[in-house]
């Protein structure tokens, strides 16, 4: 590699967001004719680093050079001029415009949509994409939108491509297709960077891997010279042996019974189809599935936040009496005496109010208590103090707005509040996403304690290793349907993985 001139050299790049150090003196080289995997946990600063290359952020310190020449990238336009194109995780598309209009957005010269459509068709034919240039973005599925994004970058003739977690929203087939395209581009002599935290993608696709941890550059090496274990170690800092505690369930009884549940999104898309299962008290039911196959809708339907098309969700008391939860909102569920806690995926956008302090956030669940028209501020404050102490939340004080806390501490505040109401059912979605190892274990412990206390826990997770070690049973969803329910003990990762991509998990081969 040393004899090649790096297409991109980043030196001593530092970026701060307020008190948070997102990138700390990072060095990175990107070469043409090579696929580089930028690997790191959530929150390790991968996206921030690449955003500085594509002109979204400006580094506080450091230098960038392209083909040996030092450059200043002040805006995305500068980046385009240098041949850098980035496909963001959150698509940068204007909903009310058509695909073609989005693709030519930001270019110069006379607007000639006809010629543009021709060129788009040419690119699509060359790589096997399917894009209708006249389709409005708001009518498109997620993978169609991603295709538009990729075509957009190719249309501009970018030769340094950055893809931010491109597979998170794709089916396995779509992923394979994408990887084939990326390999073609590499063979064309383009520099390709793929941001990911999935080890198997690194191994399957990349030529070289660079690893970030906590905003710092840890190292890079040819992919063939390393292995998953070594990369994991570099990513997390030390060897991980996932020794998650899994006590035997004590006296499990049916608590939530879901029958033939069907849910459609507002746009009329089928999100859950004929889903049936039972969650028991004192047991962790893991829910596995690739991103967007109905986990969110399932939890929200149980929590009373998602309108349901048909089916039933029944809450079963200890004495066997049943209550229907469908058609109720969170408030009426609570009024029925069902103590249901929900740790949603979007912590700051849903579970907490980012601009409010810890005490006020504690009040979200309890502010209605009592007859008075005034809120009781003492109890939530005490609860906040307790949570800070018991869960070791690092915060200047309980009067600090939660948006200023780090991801792990935010999650501790949220989980702390949710379990404080002594729930009988606990729903968690991606409870450890973006958290460091220590915080993750704190959360596992908390969940296990709830399980020991007889709570029925529904745990939606993306990391199969964790699910396999934590859950007593695993419900696998695939495209909104139940692919199967397997016992957590003794389940094989490969089998569960297969079930995630195919109903029942059996291959035809």
């Amino acid at each position, binding site marked *: 590699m040393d004899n090649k001139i790096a297409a991109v050299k980043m030196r001593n790049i530092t970026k701060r967001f*307020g*008190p948070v150090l997102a990138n700390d003196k990072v060095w990175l080289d990107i070469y043409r004719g090579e696929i580089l995997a930028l690997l790191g946990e959530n929150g390790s600063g991968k996206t921030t680093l690449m955003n500085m290359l594509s002109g979204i952020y*400006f580094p506080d*310190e450091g*230098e960038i050079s392209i083909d040996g*020449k*030092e*450059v*200043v990238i*002040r805006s995305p336009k*500068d980046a385009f*001029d240098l041949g850098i194109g980035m496909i963001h995780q959150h698509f940068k598309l204007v909903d009310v415009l058509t695909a073609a209009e989005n693709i030519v957005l930001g270019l110069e010269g006379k607007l000639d949509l006809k010629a543009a459509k021709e060129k788009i068709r040419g690119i699509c034919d060359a790589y096997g994409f399917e894009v209708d240039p006249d389709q409005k973005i708001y009518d498109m599925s997620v993978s169609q939108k991603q295709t538009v994004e990729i075509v957009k970058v190719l249309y501009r003739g970018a030769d340094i491509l950055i893809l931010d977690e491109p597979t998170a929203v794709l089916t396995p087939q779509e992923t394979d297709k994408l990887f084939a395209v990326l390999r073609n581009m590499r063979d064309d002599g383009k520099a390709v960077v793929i941001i990911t935290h999935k080890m198997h993608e690194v191994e399957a696709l990349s030529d070289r891997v660079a690893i970030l941890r906590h905003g710092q550059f840890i190292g890079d090496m040819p992919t063939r010279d390393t292995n998953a274990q070594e990369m994991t170690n570099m990513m997390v800092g030390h060897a991980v042996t996932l020794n998650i505690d899994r006590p035997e369930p004590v006296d499990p009884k049916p608590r939530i019974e879901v029958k033939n549940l069907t849910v459609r999104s507002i746009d009329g898309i089928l999100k859950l189809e004929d889903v049936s299962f039972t969650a028991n008290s004192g047991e962790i039911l893991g829910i596995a599935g690739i991103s967007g196959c109905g986990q969110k809708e399932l939890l929200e339907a149980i*929590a*009373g*936040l998602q309108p349901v098309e048909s089916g039933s969700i029944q809450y079963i008391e200890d004495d066997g009496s049943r209550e229907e939860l469908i058609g109720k*909102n*969170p*408030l*009426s*569920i*609570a009024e029925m005496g069902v103590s249901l806690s*929900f740790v*949603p995926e*979007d912590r700051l*956008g*849903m*579970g*907490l*109010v*980012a*601009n*409010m302090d810890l005490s*006020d956030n504690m*009040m*979200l*669940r309890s*502010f*209605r208590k009592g007859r008075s*028209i*005034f*809120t009781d*501020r003492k109890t939530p404050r005490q609860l906040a103090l307790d949570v800070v102490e018991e869960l070791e939340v690092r915060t200047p004080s309980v009067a600090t707005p939660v948006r*200023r806390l780090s991801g792990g501490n935010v999650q501790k505040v949220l989980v702390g509040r949710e379990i404080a109401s002594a729930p009988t059912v606990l729903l968690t979605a991606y409870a450890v996403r973006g958290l460091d190892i220590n915080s993750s274990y704190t959360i596992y412990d908390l969940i296990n304690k709830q399980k020991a206390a007889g709570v029925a826990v529904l745990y939606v997770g993306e990391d199969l290793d964790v699910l396999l070690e934590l859950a007593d049973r695993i419900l696998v969803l695939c495209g909104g349907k139940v692919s199967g329910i397997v016992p957590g003990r003794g389940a094989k990762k490969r089998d569960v993985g297969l079930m995630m991509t195919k109903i029942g998990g059996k291959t035809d081969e």
Partner: protein
Amino acid sequence: MNNKQRSPLFHIAKRSALRWYSAWAIRGGAVLLALVVCGVITSQVTGEDPIAVYKAIFEGSFGSSRKAWVLLQNIAMLLCVSLAVTPAFRMRCWNLGAEGQALAGALAAAACMILLGPKLPNGAVILCMIVTSILAGAIWAGIPAFFKAKWNTNETLFTLMMNYVATQLVSYYCVVWESPKGSGNIGIINPNTQIGWFPSIAGQKYLLNILVVALVCVAMYVYLNYSKHGYEIAVVGESERTARYVGIKVERVIIRTMLLSGAVCGLAGLLLVGSTNHTLTPTLVEGRGFTAVMVSWLAKFNPIWMILTSFLLVFLSRGAGEIATNFGLNSSFGDILTGVILFFIIGSEFFINYEIHFRKSGEKEETSNV
């Protein structure tokens, strides 16, 4: 692209937090600077020396006890409308319809005075005025709120349009109830019987208004900061998804808060008709519905600070009015000065929310003031 220049001259970052006294120091600085600019403009236009100008501004408000009372009355009315829009703003619902809501209240109050005046005893008329005007204001705000809650209709544009519907409605009734015939004006209502006129307290005509608004101010402060409703408003304003997640009925909070907002506007209209003016004109509210937006925003939606910001704006416009009469200028001069001062304060918010990093020889500097 110039490769010699390594980086842009400066770049702007959001401040993590500024202590409240620094923030208010910046705002105070902006006001002072604005006053200097206004003084310069005025002395340019009039040829007077700036000291005389400032003296005139001060005398416009405190020159005589009558002027001081007018000042207080104007502060009270502006504050009342500002208090009205604040709950909606806290919910991030831009109620720009305070003008119309107050007019609707005023119309209802005047209607009671005119139509019921000859038939009912004074006490009953006043009771009717209170009930109907508050109701009218609430309805005027409730209509856009209903559509906002139900179909997410843009409330900024809707409430704005409702202002002019109200204005025309009042214009219509001004002709219908004109007195004397052919004047197109209502004139003083019930000038002889004084039915529907609110009583003076301790011989001061404006004291009642001031006391009522002071009460509303404290009540609004407590409501927004300590009541369950106030908490719900804050949660809905920050994040509707969070509100739904904890079971707050967002639609209901929107409608309820806008109804409250309109009701307080209706109260302002009631006070203007029943206590201050005893008449109804399409311009009765004098643009307070719009000024209130600025008062509330400048005070960061805090009712107590709003006393200060409404004082500031009324003080300035009274002062500018005084300059206008003293130096033989047109009374609209006050609007120009008010505009200039607002621009300075609006601009100063930038320096509270953002900081500028200059990149000179790798060192960082901060600007902290205008």
